[in-house]
Every structure is written in C-alpha cells, then in structure tokens.
C-alpha cells in the first residue's frame, strides 16, 4: 500500500497489505477486475499464444461445417451468374432484395468493432482493452463480406469494373451523383481505415509473438511486426497514430452507414424517402454490431478459454451499452413510424398496413427481438453477466435487425405509387443460400484469423494493469489509475 513500494519491483507482484481485512478487499478487487489482477507478462503471453496454436477436433469439425456452407454460397453465386438473376425471387417492382439487406446487415455488424475500440480508446475506457481486437476483427470481416454484396447483386458482374473510377477507352467515368458511388467510396475508406487501425494496434503483439515463436511463424511475425522493439519513440508514435486514426475513423464510420441508408432514402420510394434514415441506420448498425461483438466475446471466451481476459465486468459493461442502444434504436424507429403514421399519406400508410397486415408475423417477431427481449432483460446485472442469456439475446437481436433490414428494403419496394404494380416478394433458394453462406464465410474467416494473430491485445492489457493500482483510503482499498503514458 505504500506508494513507494508500488514502484519498487514489477507492478505485477504488488504484495498484499498486512491488514488482512484490507487484503481481502484487495483480493476481491483482483477477482473482480482484470486490470487489478496483474500477472507476469510472460504468463499472459504464453496463455495467448498457446490458445492461438490450439486446434482440437471440435475446431476442425466447425471449420469443415463453415467451409461447406461457404462452398455452397460460392456455388449458388456461380449458378446465379451463369443463369441470370431470374433464379432469385426478385420481380419487376421489388428489384432489391435480401442482397441489399445483407449489405446493410453485414456493414452493420461490422460497425461496432471499430467504434468500440476507437471511441472507448479516446474516452480512455479500460474495459475495452481485452475485447478491442475481437471487435475490430468483426469490423474487418463484416465489411469484407458486406463488400461482396453489391457484386453479387448486380446483373452484369462481368461489366462491374465500369463502376471503378479508372480511365478507360470508353472515356466514361462513374457518376459521382449516384448514392451507390458514395457508398462505394465510404466502404473503401472505412475498410482501409479500420485495417490500418487494427494493424497498428497489432504490431506490438505480433512482435511479442515473434519473440516466442519459431520456424515459419517466427518469419511471418518478424515480417509483420516491422522490427518492433518497443522503444519509447515507437510506443509514443503508436499511441499518437492510434489516437489520430480513432479520431478520423469515427466520423467515417458514421458516414458508411449513412451512405448505405442514403442508397435507400435518396430514392423517392414510399417507406424509404425519409431524412431520418441516416442516423436511424447508424444506430441500428451499432445496435446489431454491439450485439455481434458480445456474441463473438462469448464464443471466443468459451472456445479459447479466455476466462481470465473476458470477465463479468466486460459483459456487464457491454450489456449496459447494449441497453442504451436498444433505447436509442426504439426512439428512432418510433420517430420514423409515427411520422409516417401521423402524416397519413396513402402510400406510407399502405407500407405500414402491409407491415402490420400480410407481413405481421415478421414485423412482430422483429419488434419482439429488438424491443421486448432486450428491454425486458438487460436491466438486470445477473442477465448481463450470464453468458447463456447474453448469447440468446445477442442472437435474437441479430435476427430482429436482419428482419428489419429485409422489411425496409423488400417490404417498402412492394408498394409504390401505382397500385397496379404492387407485387409481393418471396425469397427463393439463391438468396437463402447466399445469405447463410456469407454468415458461414464470416465465421470461417474469423476462426482462421484467431489462429494467426493474438485475438487478445496483450500489450493493452499490460498497459492497463501497469496503470491500475490500489491505494488505501480510510478503511477501504480503492483502485487507482495512473497514466504511465
């Protein structure tokens, strides 16, 4: 407890106070908080790297399953390219279907990752430390999968390069007035940005891996870690560049999903043409995104046995975050709904009538997943900290948000200005296969990735642990936080 002693000897073997009442408090604190429960770095390194190399039979089975689904996805896609989009359920009024919904959905789940690590980093929230990378990874692969969908969706994929702004013999340039082009730009920016952001934070851990690995992995990691030694200068610049990137990437993140929503709201289509869509979609994205991060945390913790790193406190914090987002999302959805409802314009009403009429099952399922369940449960700490509960809630929210996207895209389209042309939409096998297959693909990428990079940003954990100490205040032991940087 003596400040002087805290700095003598490494931070991880802080001795317990003599007074055992206080000692119990300290120990309790260590069980509670990862940041107080400092361990020797060597141990943490070994823990992380060991999990990185472990591949049991369960791993291989899962891998095979996901691989099979992914294969199905690519086959379905090939068939669609050869025989034309006719095999999908789209029709002359509903020309956009689940493919666009998937684009929105995958960008959505990709959203939270960077947000969590960037925003929380800027806000110096310590609970981000062990989960930051797991989250960023979702962003990376979520975006990658999302970027597939504009490609899957178009009618003449072999002419897709017309959309790229490269000089060509046709003297043609893409149309910067098209929302699709904005979207393309935004996704590219975000993809590059979050890749850089993630890579920068990855360098010290890659160096760590380099130091403990042998053979080809060592070669790989020494190449990737760019010769990192951890000098003051390197550390300092790392901190600064991460902050810079976080700073820029947050508005970019907003722009990405706004751009996606503008694909819809720029069109004068009843049910789409609404100014609230930008923020509404951003919130929706964060909502499904955070839920996705929680799911990943649970899976990673279970399969890789990272109980030490991902503790109740983290799930609790994320749960609270999710609760806040639930409320925000409800607010936006309600705002959008009541505006259309009160305005009482025939077509908007027709769209709502369709949601509460023929599409009622989906619609109410969506409300149940997105509103009833989270609101009903997340207020309780017991739920927030129970993994199975969070697993269920997370999955339900994914389902709910996906339905919401489909309803907005295909649902609205099936109603338009001339009632003569109203056509309902039902998906056919390609849409289903492709959607599931892409989910599997995402999982596949994630699994493989966790076996190549430390999914826990170990250095951030050290940093936090080095910062956190405990000091006595009166009769109690309080955790203290000292900026080592």
């Amino acid at each position, binding site marked *: 407890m003596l400040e002087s002693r805290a700095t003598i000897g*490494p931070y*991880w073997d802080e001795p317990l106070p003599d007074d055992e009442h206080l000692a119990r408090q300290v120990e309790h604190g260590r069980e509670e908080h990862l940041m107080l429960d400092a361990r*020797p*770095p060597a141990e943490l*390194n070994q823990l992380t790297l060991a999990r990185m190399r472990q591949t049991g039979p369960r791993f291989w089975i899962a891998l095979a399953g996901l691989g099979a689904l992914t294969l199905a996805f690519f086959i379905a896609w090939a068939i669609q390219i050869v025989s034309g989009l006719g095999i999908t359920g789209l029709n002359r009024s509903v020309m956009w279907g689940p493919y666009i919904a998937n684009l929105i959905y995958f960008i959505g789940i990709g959203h939270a990752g960077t947000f969590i690590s960037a925003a929380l980093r800027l806000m110096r929230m310590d609970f981000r430390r062990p989960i930051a990378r797991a989250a960023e990874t979702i962003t990376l692969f979520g975006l990658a999968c999302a970027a597939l969908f504009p490609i899957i969706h178009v009618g003449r994929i*072999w*002419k897709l*390069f017309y959309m*790229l*702004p*490269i*000089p*060509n*013999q046709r*003297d*043609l*340039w*893409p*149309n*910067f*007035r098209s929302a699709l082009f*904005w979207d393309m*730009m*935004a996704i590219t*920016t975000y993809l*590059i*940005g979050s890749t850089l952001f993630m890579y*920068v934070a990855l360098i*010290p851990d890659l*160096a*760590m891996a380099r*130091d*403990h690995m042998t053979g080809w992995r060592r070669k790989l990691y020494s*190449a990737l870690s*760019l*010769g*990192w*030694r*951890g*000098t*003051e*200068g*390197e*550390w*300092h*610049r*790392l901190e*600064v*560049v991460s902050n*810079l*990137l976080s700073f*820029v*990437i947050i*508005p*970019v993140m907003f*722009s990405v999903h706004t751009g996606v929503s503008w694909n819809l709201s720029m069109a004068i289509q009843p049910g789409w043409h609404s100014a609230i869509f930008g923020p509404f979609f951003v919130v929706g994205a964060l909502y499904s995104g955070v839920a996705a991060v929680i799911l990943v945390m649970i899976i990673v913790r279970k399969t890789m046995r990272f109980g030490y790193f991902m503790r109740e406190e983290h799930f609790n914090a994320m749960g609270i975050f999710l609760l806040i987002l639930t409320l925000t999302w409800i607010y936006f959805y309600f705002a959008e709904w009541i505006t259309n409802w009160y305005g009482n314009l025939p077509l908007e009403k027709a769209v709502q009538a369709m949601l509460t009429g023929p599409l009622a099952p989906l619609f109410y399922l969506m409300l149940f997943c997105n509103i009833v369940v989270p609101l009903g449960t997340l207020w309780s700490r017991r739920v927030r900290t129970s993994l199975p509960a969070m697993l269920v809630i997370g999955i339900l929210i994914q389902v709910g948000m996906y339905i919401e996207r489909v309803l907005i895209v295909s649902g609205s389209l099936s109603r338009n200005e001339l009632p003569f042309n109203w056509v309902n939409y039902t998906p056919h096998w390609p849409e289903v296969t492709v959607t599931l297959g892409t989910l599997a693909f995402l999982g596949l990428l994630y699994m493989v990735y966790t076996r190549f990079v430390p999914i826990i940003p170990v250095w951030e954990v*050290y940093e936090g642990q*080095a910062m956190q100490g405990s000091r006595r205040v009166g009769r109690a032991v309080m955790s203290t936080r000292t900026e*080592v*940087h």
Partner: protein
Amino acid sequence: MADFLLLGLFDNVETTADVVDEVRALGVPDEQMTVMSHVPYSSKIFARKPVRLWFLPFVLGGAALGALVAFFLTYGTSYLYPIEVGGQGLNPVPPTAIIYFEMISLFSMLGAFAGFLLQNRFPILTRRMYDERISDGYIGLEVCAPLAVAEQVVTVFEAHHARVIKREDAAAFKPQGIRHLLFWGAVGTGGLVAVLVPLLLSYDIVRVPWINKMDDTVVVRAQEGPRLAAPVGAVPVQGPVFIAGEPATAPLPASEVSLQRGQMLYGTNCAMCHGLQGDRAGAEVGKYFPEIPQSLGARAAILSDQDLFRVIRLGRNRMPGLAENLSPGETWDIVNYVRSLGE
C-alpha cells in the same frame, strides 16, 4: 575509435530509471540511450527528453492529396464527361461534399500511417540490439558508448543486478538507408504495376474476352447473310421500280444536260431496236420485231413518266429490262430524251 552497444535488462521501472541517471552521469548523452519495454512507458518516467513527433505534416499532406482526388472525381470527371442527369446540373454541391469528405478522411488516415512508418523507420530491415525477454516484462536499456565508457556502464548494470548484459561492437549493426531505399522502391514499383495493369485492361490493350452477350445478337443486321430472295413480282410501296426510297414519280428536270446524257444512253441501250429517232430507222435488231412501235415518241406520249421508267427498267413483253445497266438517274435521262422525240 570503435563504439560498443550494450543492452541490459532490468525487471522494474525504478531500477531502470536509476541506471539511466548513472549512465548519464558517466557522460553518455541521452541520444545514445534507448529504453525498450513491453508497455508504453513514456520517456519522462526515465527522466529522458520527450520524443519529437512529426505527424501534422503527414496528416495535412494526406488531407490535401485527398482533396485533390476528390476534386478530380467530382469536377474533373464532370468536365471530362459532361452529362445531364435528373436535371441536377453538372456539379451539384451535396454529392461533391460527400466525395470530399470520404477522400480527405481516407488520405489523411493513410498519411498518418505513413508518418508512423517513416518516423519509426519501419520496416526495420537490419539487425538491432534486442532481447526477446523484453516482451516478457523486462525493461531493456540500450547504451551506445566507446570502449572505456562501456566498461563503466557494464559495472553500473551489474551494480543494479541487470538480468542480462549484452555487449557487441556497434559496427555489427549497419544503418539501413540503402535497404530502405530498395524496399520503398520495390513497394513503389508494385504500386505502379497495380495501377498500370488495370489500365491495360480498361484500354483493351490486353484483351480479356469479357462475356458480352449483347454483341453476338440473334438479330440479322444489315448486310448479314444468308440473304433471302425478294418476292417475285411483288411491288413495294416505293413504287413499281425496285429502288428503295427512289420514288418513280419524280423525274429529273429535262435540262439540256439531261437530254444529252439521255441521247447518249439511248444510243447505246435502245437505238439498236428502236432506232436513233425512235422510228426504227436503221435499227438492225428492230427489223425482226414487228411489235416495236413505229414512233416511240408517239407511244411514249400516252404513258406516264413512271410507266416509261418502269418499262425501261423492268422491260415489257419481249423488251428486256435494263435495270442492271442503268442507274435511276440515267433511266430518267432516257425518259426525258424519249419524251423529247417528236411524234
């Protein structure tokens, strides 16, 4: 005189800081020392000069570049390819703003990253003094000193129970300037290729047979075969004479020129049957065909222009059609000439 590189590993901040002080006391300047750690300890913890940073120029430069790119994508393209859509005008502001935002963000991020790499001289391509245990929590202190001082530094290290002490001749660690040049050169060339190859494609210099189902159309286009025979004896709307777009009802004006041409053509084509004056006079062949009119002029008088025209081109009874020998214009010349023949 040769310098030496020393590396000592210590297990906590306090000791390291002390060592730093003492080594400094030995007259080793700060620049010759480097602290390495597994945690971002800032320099002031070891009472060392703060690290200098040069991020601003990189970020701003990136942003400026981004603005340029955005300018090209908006005003540039709409200048190169002016085209009206939806009555929006060529350069509407809101879309432009979006493109600017995205491009500036993208390139400033790239700038920041470039700054990070360059300031750290990443990637480090030569050997550096380092010990793997640093990432396991030890704090390394690298000192570069001439032989004499090095001895004393080592004693200082030992005095503070350094876990490891490495000492090597500084000459063993080469500067990496050249290699960096090569490296970035390679990266640059790679980038260049990455730009050029798509251009080869997009300019059809390298042809990839893209599937273009619109080119091999099933439509029978102009001049495509197999040609089908025209209906025999049918008369198109254009008139009895099979010349599309050539009305049989608009003769050339009977100008001097036309008449002269007509006379010439008549001489070569008609005279051998009808006689030079249309009176069968001296018409060798004509002899054998009594039905040839005595006076072509008189006969022509009762026929309309287009009937004459048609008869000349398609022939009549035993008179052969001359369509293959005469252009429409020439035929009209003959019509005029025949009209000019007296009764």
